[in-house]
């Protein structure tokens, strides 16, 4: 039998997928323990979420939350960093810390037979880190080296500069890495004080997903995290600090660069916006997948780039909305013009078509199950629930909610949360090569910035 090549095969009825049941308890010290049994492979993914991140860095101490997170695996009690990592290696663990504006996440994946050791090690690091002076001096030096290396990387320079332009002194105005000035003036006492005030059980959730039992996880955690107490940390900023009015066009010179790294955007929407689902679909159409308008335009039609994307960075407070793209130097002005046009078009002049809506919805909903294949993926999903106070049935409701989105809702949501007149453009590229093309954009004179201005 040979296949019919006159038309594409139609997918059959979808097989059902249900998000696995979540079990929750709270330990006497306030630490929440949430788990899901997922017994496909004898692996367990452990994540400890602390709902405090770089947005609570004190002024002049930008980078303190990340510095503290980096110190967690540098020793505990009498044990050194090397001892801790020997212990992790003995259970074949994969270990990582991840710091964002709103949260610190410490994750540890191990074989399920070592779940007890995994939780104990997590507790040693998060609840009882040594935070010694000499380790602090070494780690701070390494972080300063990393900042130096980031100055050489166009995407890293673009990220750091762009959030400063958009947010200024607002808690979201610096990346977690902080800046050289703040790191240099930081002391080990700052880290210890931050750990004491912010890394507390009452704002933390231990998530365990894998071949493990909830009561067993709870029992191990109760012992391992015993003695971790403390007052509620100061609340993170819950209303927007004043935002600056950045110049429309900014450039960080990179002489001789073959590409310009671009960021084009403004402050966008918060995670709790009622427009969340409409914006997810709108972004898919604008620049959130390969067949998005922006990527097809800049990559497939014009050959300016290897890839272009847009994103709403949904956070507890409004995060950045932006275009992110690296383009061939001589295409810089044209790529900026096309990006602004695509953003403007979707909010009215060329609204989402019914085909685009159907494709956008299908792309988000039909592939939904694959986001929950591994223990780590499911654990990350549970972390989202804990971080953004989402209801337990959030994942069950997500697909039907997206399927109800209409074209009008997308257009209106994009019109509310994107604004071509407010877009700030940042170019990290060869000023001499692109300077003559920029005035035609009519975004005003470019403000020239230095890679280490912030």
């Amino acid at each position, binding site marked *: 039998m040979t296949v019919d090549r006159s038309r594409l095969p139609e*997918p059959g009825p979808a*097989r*059902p997928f249900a998000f696995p049941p979540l079990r929750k308890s709270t330990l006497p010290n306030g630490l929440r323990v949430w788990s899901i049994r997922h017994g*496909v492979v004898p692996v367990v993914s452990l994540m400890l979420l602390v709902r405090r991140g770089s947005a609570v860095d004190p002024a002049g101490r930008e980078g303190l939350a990340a510095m503290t997170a980096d110190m967690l695996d540098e020793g505990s009690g009498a044990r050194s*960093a090397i001892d801790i990592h020997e212990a992790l290696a003995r*259970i074949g663990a994969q270990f990582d810390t991840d710091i964002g504006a709103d949260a610190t996440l410490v994750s540890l994946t191990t074989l399920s037979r070592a779940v007890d050791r995994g939780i104990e090690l997590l507790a040693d690091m998060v609840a009882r880190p040594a935070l010694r002076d000499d380790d602090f001096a070494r780690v701070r030096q390494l972080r300063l080296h990393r900042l130096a*290396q980031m100055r050489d990387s166009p995407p890293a320079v673009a990220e750091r500069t762009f959030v400063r332009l958009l947010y200024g002194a607002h808690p979201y105005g610096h990346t977690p890495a902080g800046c050289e000035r703040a790191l240099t003036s930081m002391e080990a006492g700052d880290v210890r004080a931050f750990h004491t005030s912010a890394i507390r059980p009452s704002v933390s959730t231990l998530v365990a997903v894998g071949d493990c039992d909830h009561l067993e996880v709870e029992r191990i955690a109760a012992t391992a995290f015993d003695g971790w107490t403390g007052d509620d940390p100061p609340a993170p900023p819950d209303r927007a600090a004043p935002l600056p009015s950045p110049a429309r066009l900014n450039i960080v010179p*990179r002489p001789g660069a073959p590409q310009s790294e671009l960021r084009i955007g403004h402050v966008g929407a918060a995670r709790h916006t009622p427009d969340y689902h409409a914006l997810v679909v709108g972004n898919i159409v604008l620049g959130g997948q390969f*067949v998005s308008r922006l990527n097809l335009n800049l990559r497939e*039609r014009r050959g300016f780039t290897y890839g272009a994307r847009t994103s709403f960075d949904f956070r507890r407070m409004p995060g950045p909305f932006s275009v992110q793209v690296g383009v061939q130097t001589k295409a810089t002005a044209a790529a900026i013009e096309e990006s602004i046009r695509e953003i403007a078009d979707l909010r009215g002049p060329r609204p989402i078509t019914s085909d685009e809506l159907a494709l956008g919805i299908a792309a988000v909903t039909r592939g939904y199950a694959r986001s929950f294949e591994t223990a780590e993926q499911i654990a990350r999903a549970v972390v989202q629930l804990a971080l953004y106070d989402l209801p337990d049935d959030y994942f069950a409701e997500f697909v039907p909610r997206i399927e109800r989105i209409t074209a009008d809702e997308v257009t209106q949501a994009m019109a509310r949360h994107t604004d071509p007149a407010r877009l700030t453009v940042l170019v990290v590229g060869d000023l001499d090569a692109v300077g003559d093309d920029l005035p035609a954009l009519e975004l005003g004179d470019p403000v020239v910035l230095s890679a280490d201005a912030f």
Partner: protein
Amino acid sequence: MRRVPLNISFAKHTLANGLDVLLHEDHSCPIAAVNVWYHVGSKNERPGHTGFAHLFEHLMFEGSQHHDRGYFHPLQGAGATLNGSTNADRTNYWEVVPSNALELALWMESDRMGFLLPALTEAKFENQRHVVLNERRQNYENRPYGLAAMAILAALYRPDHPYHWTTIGEIADLEAVRLEEAHAFFRRFYHPANASLAIAGDIDAAGALAMAEACFGGIEAGEPVPPVRAEASLEGEVRLLLFDRIELPRLYLAWLSPAMFAEGDADLDLATDLLANGKTSRLYRRLVFDERLAADVSAAQNSREIGGFVQVTATAAPGRTLPELERVIVEEIARLAADGPTDAEIERGRVQAESQFVYRLQTVGGFGGKSDQLNAYNVFTGDPSYFDRDLARYQAVTAASIRRTVSRSLVRGGRVTLSVVPRDRGDLAMPGSSPADVS
């Protein structure tokens, strides 16, 4: 402690046209993975025509005869995620779809295997040439230290050796290549006898095989592609330097090493781990933790089909010099060759290897998923069940075998030493280095 079974159960069928079909059922998530390997990579290219295998991979996403409106559109509409990649030895393509869209993915993959050329136009070719040149700018030319790999490979292998050039290719070659070459390349390499298809996940193996037969069975068999053979040798030391837009100088040391799955390959994999992977490693402890000479250090055995290379990389801390780093790295390698690893290091390496193999069983599709692994083993060893033998290689490593291999490859073997330094700071390079010729 409970040991876990470590394998990927599968069935293998070879269609009449020579296409291998590998099937693996895993019903834990309602998704299906389709994965196609073509046994062609940049090592099948010739000097003056480099970068073509990868450029060709891009063309495979531009539509085929019976669906000439872009490869992504219908698949993303069905909820798929998809991608492809090219390296020196192979090119792979994959889709992960909801299990009800398996036939669509097989239809799309088979249409481009059988019917790509009628849809391939000059306009598509020109566009993807520019996309690839931009990929090169983004990932090599405009990335800090991005040209180091080109300098190292060019120095490790003679100009006529197929590992002499990188997969992204030379700018001049990418600018000169013509559409006609795509036709010849497709006919030579993109046919069932040079491909392997794996289907994994929430599938019915018999039904999936019937679908594969219906979609791929009618594609004409091609001529088998003879294996690429080339010898490499390196004597003494080659010292090179490269200028870049960077602040901190970086040192690269590279040696030729055994091929993938050859004797010594697993030894060097574990040896490079214990030298420079993670905070417990010997070089991290000395260079970064204790003596604070380096901002970072890493090492890897790069296993490839007809030969490998080991690379150690270290970035100098501000105010420290590359000769200081080199001295410590050479000392630690010599110490490992002389005294071997400790029992604790061997045990740690084994536990980590076992864990890594378990972690690899977690996904059915995508890069490194079970379907990709079945194809890798099938294409490189002819045996998709190689998973447990692969792990056994790591469990068989001993202190003596590491000592022997490190001594042979990293102490007695020839070496490429590359310094990457800021512009106008040639004085920061290792003494006696000559400029590398890359762009």
